[in-house]
């Protein structure tokens, strides 16, 4: 299974970025081998709006099954949910390898619901 960690910079030894939609980059890890298989720049860092939607969409289409981040807005949460991706919480700016280890050890708490009510939806979900 692949999981993604939001990170500050596009490098394997970066630190966790507590924001999701506008995180600097993502590290994608294979949970079976524990290996980092890819680091990707987040193209949505400067998006005026909808960064949560676009970033969640990007990760969904990468085939990840779990996401680890510091906070998740309602738009991103809804997209991840629709794509069957689970989100897990990690605070602060911890090192990526530590976050990955904690996740594999089952130490991270799932984000059960979006942090906010979000902008009003017109019922498309």
């Amino acid at each position, binding site marked *: 299974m692949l999981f993604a960690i939001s990170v*500050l910079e596009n490098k394997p030894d970066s630190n966790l970025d507590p*924001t999701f*939609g*506008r995180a600097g980059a993502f590290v994608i890890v294979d949970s079976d081998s524990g290996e980092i298989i890819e680091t990707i720049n987040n193209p949505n*860092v*400067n*998006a*005026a*709006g909808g*960064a949560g939607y676009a970033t969640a969409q990007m990760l969904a289409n990468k085939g990840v099954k779990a996401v680890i981040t510091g906070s998740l*807005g*309602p738009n991103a949460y809804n997209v991840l949910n629709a794509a069957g991706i689970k989100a897990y919480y990690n605070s602060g700016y911890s090192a990526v390898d530590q976050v990955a280890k904690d996740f594999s050890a089952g130490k991270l708490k799932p984000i059960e619901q979006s*942090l*906010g*009510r*979000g*902008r009003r939806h017109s019922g498309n979900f």
Partner: protein
Amino acid sequence: MKQIVITSGKGGTGKTTVVSALARIVKSKVLVDADVDAANLEIVTNPKLLISEPYSEGLKAFIDTDKCIKCDICRQKCRFSAIIINAQGNYEVTDYSCEGCKVCELICPVEAVSLNEVSSGLIKHSHTPFGNLWHGELFAGRDNSGKMVMHLRQKGKDEALDKKADWILIDGAPGIGCQVIASITGVDAAIAITEPTLSAIHDMRRIIELTSNFKVPVGIVINKVDINPSLVLEIKDWARSMKLPILAEIPIDRRIVKFMIQRMSPIEIGDEFLTGLYESIWNNFLEIL
């Protein structure tokens, strides 16, 4: 590193004056002026410009009159009424109304439409005695879509991470639209400045509805409390019912404007009581974080 936005809903309640004071109180920070439409933080922070570079908000359509066959399809399909027939009888895009959606380019049967980058403002980076400042200048009449605000915040975040600064202080814009959403999304907390007038209270309720949508914790500063003491009590009651802390109550003091005209903050008046008030904003705010 934590990002803090100073916001209000209504304009003129004293956001920038509060930021100018906090700029002098809070150590280890980067400043961002997110009111690119009326960027005033530079007036009271004595900046030395380091960089100023052009900024493009996006694409605008352009019609090549030599190729255009005046079929009128683009004008009919443009949802923004941006395509007009000018005095010479030619089809023309009104720059201000064009949203860069590309529909006209898509449907033009003779490829007479192209989309070009249009310069919409300047991104500025300045050194101030209180930390570096990222500020922008949106050219008059340009769309304030929030993109420039996001860009400035990203630059501020990069610099804060690089310099290991503890805080990013963001001076917000009035309103609740894109420019304000862009200044609130992803911040760690907000300070809402209001005043005891029905208009300011109405606008503060709307901005707090917005911050609570984003689950951003908020503290309230009541400015110009002498205008209407009974409304101050109403604000306090409401804040209590919403479980929002009041960080400070600031009286009207004509010296604040006098010092602003000399491009200084209320801190520099040197009045112990006044300085203490502005310091209490920050000290009380640290407690809610």
